[in-house]
């Protein structure tokens, strides 16, 4: 007999996988981006089910709010390049199908060998508030995770500067030479 949590999980899993499938198959890039938002929201549901509410909020704020919107803007900027009537799959897409199914099959086969997978979730010893506080303190504690935290911020800064430089319009004459 399924419990309520399991029903929520199965419904969310079905929606997420369907949306993910539509992301990689839909012909229109705008539709693919909207299905991507649906998938990301589905993953946020699993974060909530896993008692990681903060990560669910980060998922919505970073992925749906920033990355998905950025992807949609770029879809609109480049929409004259490939229309929906163009071919969307390359010539070796059948090999991609084989690779993906082989990967999935071997992963599932490997999981049946692994112990611990039937494990039930142990009870949490801390409340949500205390866990969040612990996470925040761990990120800035000199003895714990401050180095990954700082590396992540430097990486973000480098990506910010790098993407501005890469997307800079550049010299017009050079562009026209390339086109001719």
């Amino acid at each position, binding site marked *: 007999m399924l419990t309520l949590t399991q029903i929520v999980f199965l419904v969310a899993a079905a929606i997420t996988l369907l949306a993910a499938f539509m992301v990689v198959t839909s012909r229109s890039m705008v539709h693919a981006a909207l299905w991507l938002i649906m998938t990301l929201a589905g993953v946020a549901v699993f974060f909530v089910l896993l008692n990681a509410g903060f990560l669910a909020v980060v998922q919505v704020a970073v992925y749906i709010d920033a*990355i998905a919107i950025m992807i949609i803007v770029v879809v609109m900027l480049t929409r004259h390049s490939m229309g929906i009537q163009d071919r969307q799959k390359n010539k070796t897409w059948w090999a991609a199908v084989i690779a993906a199914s082989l990967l999935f099959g071997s992963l599932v086969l490997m999981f049946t060998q692994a112990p611990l997978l039937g494990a039930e979730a142990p009870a949490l010893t801390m409340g949500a508030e205390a866990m969040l506080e612990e996470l925040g303190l761990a990120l800035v504690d000199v003895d714990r*995770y401050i180095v990954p935290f700082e590396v992540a911020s430097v990486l973000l800064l480098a990506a910010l500067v790098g993407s501005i430089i890469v997307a800079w319009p550049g010299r017009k004459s050079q562009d026209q030479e390339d086109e001719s």
Partner: protein
Amino acid sequence: MIPLSWYIILGAALFSIGIYGALARRNALAILMAIELMLNAVNLNLVAFWRYLTPNMVAGKVFALVVFTVAAAEAAVGLALIISIYRRRHTIAVEEIDMMKW
């Protein structure tokens, strides 16, 4: 309760769909979206392992946050590259971006 294997299999399925998308699509933007799917599958697995195996440590969540950061950086740089290539070559089909193919 939900067994851990459900999350792991869901993550594997999401990752495999992402692999298919990254290998089979011609549009560079679609490939970027498929990579986002794969990163999400990895994050789901990280958080699931944290919850089921080490719920009293924060390492799993910190790692997931670092993956979020890397995903944001990767999306920003990838989209900037796509805009730059589109501006110069007027295409975002990956087979036509072959300047470095020898």
